[in-house]
């Protein structure tokens, strides 16, 4: 087995080892399933409640996707604005940073007052938590333009818009796709956190209700499902990134 294959198998081996050790510990010490369920028990519960879990998972999934879609639109627009105008950057960046430092879970009660229990707060929490990395990365990509190249184009009569569309935007694409991977995982966090207090559907709601009825296996199933969804979406954007901006991964630029 060569190094590449080893790297490909490494995460699966680690995961299998973790599950096996977990199972052994639970069986050997006879840990109560109300405290810490074994992997077998979680699997049983997942299968037993699979239709319930699937319903909640679907809700969490599409709510996250809606919030994430809004985050892409807003993040790209704001990123474009602050990346292309120094004034907008100076005006907005400190405020945006301060906003980003606020815990987004703290918005949920306010959003409930405005939009009621249900989809509204969850979508908005997913959006609020995930637009920031997208915005920052678009802005960074636009702002890193070689002054020489700008001169080459400006002397030809290029307007700011030409430079942005011909050079700035393509250049920021690898940053953009990179940020999507981070943002999608954050969006799942936002949705789940919101559903925990402000929804009657979704994985977040499932976690709370399973916890309060001491169904620990089911609660762990919920965590498992969110984790899998986030990981799949991460891999999807990782794939898109590699296939759309291959030029950025050759490690030959400017060195």
């Amino acid at each position, binding site marked *: 087995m060569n190094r590449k294959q080893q790297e490909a198998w490494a995460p699966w081996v680690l995961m299998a080892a973790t599950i096996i050790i977990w199972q052994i510990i639970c069986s050997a010490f006879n840990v109560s399933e109300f405290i810490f369920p074994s992997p077998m028990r979680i699997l049983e519960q997942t299968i037993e409640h699979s239709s319930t879990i699937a319903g909640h998972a679907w809700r969490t999934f599409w709510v996250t996707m809606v919030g994430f879609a809004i985050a892409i639109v807003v993040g790209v627009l704001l990123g474009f604005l602050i990346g292309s105008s120094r004034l907008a950057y100076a005006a907005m960046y400190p405020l945006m940073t301060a906003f980003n430092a606020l815990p987004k879970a703290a918005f949920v009660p306010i959003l409930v007052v405005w939009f009621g229990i249900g989809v509204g707060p969850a979508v908005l929490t997913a959006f609020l938590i995930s637009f920031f990395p997208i915005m920052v990365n678009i802005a960074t990509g636009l702002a890193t333009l*070689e002054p*020489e*190249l700008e*001169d*080459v*184009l*400006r*002397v*030809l*009569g*290029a307007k700011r818009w*030409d430079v942005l569309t*011909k*050079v700035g935007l*393509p*250049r920021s*694409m690898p940053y953009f796709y990179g940020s999507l991977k981070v943002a999608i995982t954050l969006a799942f966090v936002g949705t789940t956190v919101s559903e925990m207090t402000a929804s009657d559907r979704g994985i977040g709601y499932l976690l709370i209700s399973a916890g309060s009825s001491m169904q620990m296996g089911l609660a762990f199933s919920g965590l498992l499902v969110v984790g899998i969804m986030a990981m799949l979406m991460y891999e999807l954007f990782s794939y898109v990134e590699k296939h759309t*901006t291959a*030029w*950025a991964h*050759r490690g*030959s*630029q*400017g060195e």
Partner: protein
Amino acid sequence: MSDTPAATDTAFVDFRKVWLAYNEDLHAKGIFAVEDINLQVQQGEFIAIVGPSGCGKSTFMKLTTGLKRPSKGQIFVDGKPVDGPLKISGMAFQAPSLLPWRTTLDNVLLPLEIVEPHRSQFKAKRKEYEARASALLASVGLGGMEQKFPWQLSGGMQQRASICRALIHEPKMLLLDEPFGALDAFTREELWCTLRDLQAAQKFNVILVTHDLRESVFLADTVYVMSKGPGRFVVKRHIDLPRPRDLEITYTPEFTDIVHELRGHIGAMRKTGASAAISQ
């Protein structure tokens, strides 16, 4: 420098008592990046500007292309006062700065997507432009490289492509800012010859900014030596070596004499510059 005023009427590039301060503050304090530049370049002339780093060579390029306006004085190019970016110029720098997501061909075509009148005809005439770009690439030894990406080319090849990009819109004036500075000695000499042949064939004006004296003497018709802080032209040296020049010429006594002479000027300038700095 002694120039005959009569020459100014026919000059292609004509600097008349040009001063530049980077901003109002510096202007008010009387601190200028370049001072009292007078320069007349004839149509098709190849000039080189040499001098220590930070002497305002690059500023001079920005003035010539209209990217910066002089604080005092006037600049005329091709008989017209320069009052904005000058589309008849092409520029290339030490860094090739090709766009990594475009093929070599598309990189060379980039200026045509921006400069009028090509911009509005770009879609309709794409085939014709591609043929022009291919011919240009072939003329600098990059034939067959059209579909390669910049990261698949060596440093020297990237720089050739960068020069093609500067020439694709058939500018009357090519401005090069230390274009060969990052290349190894052999590649650099190869590119000297490439540039020499391009200029001989197309007869555009070249303004080459460099700190390589051999490069300036080999390529240019006239070499200007610039002093530092403030940037002034202190020496104008006409290079009367016959053309076409071969690399062999760089080993002749005539050639090395001129290089030595220029080296002497720069050495003297550095000394006075240093003592001036101490006395301040």
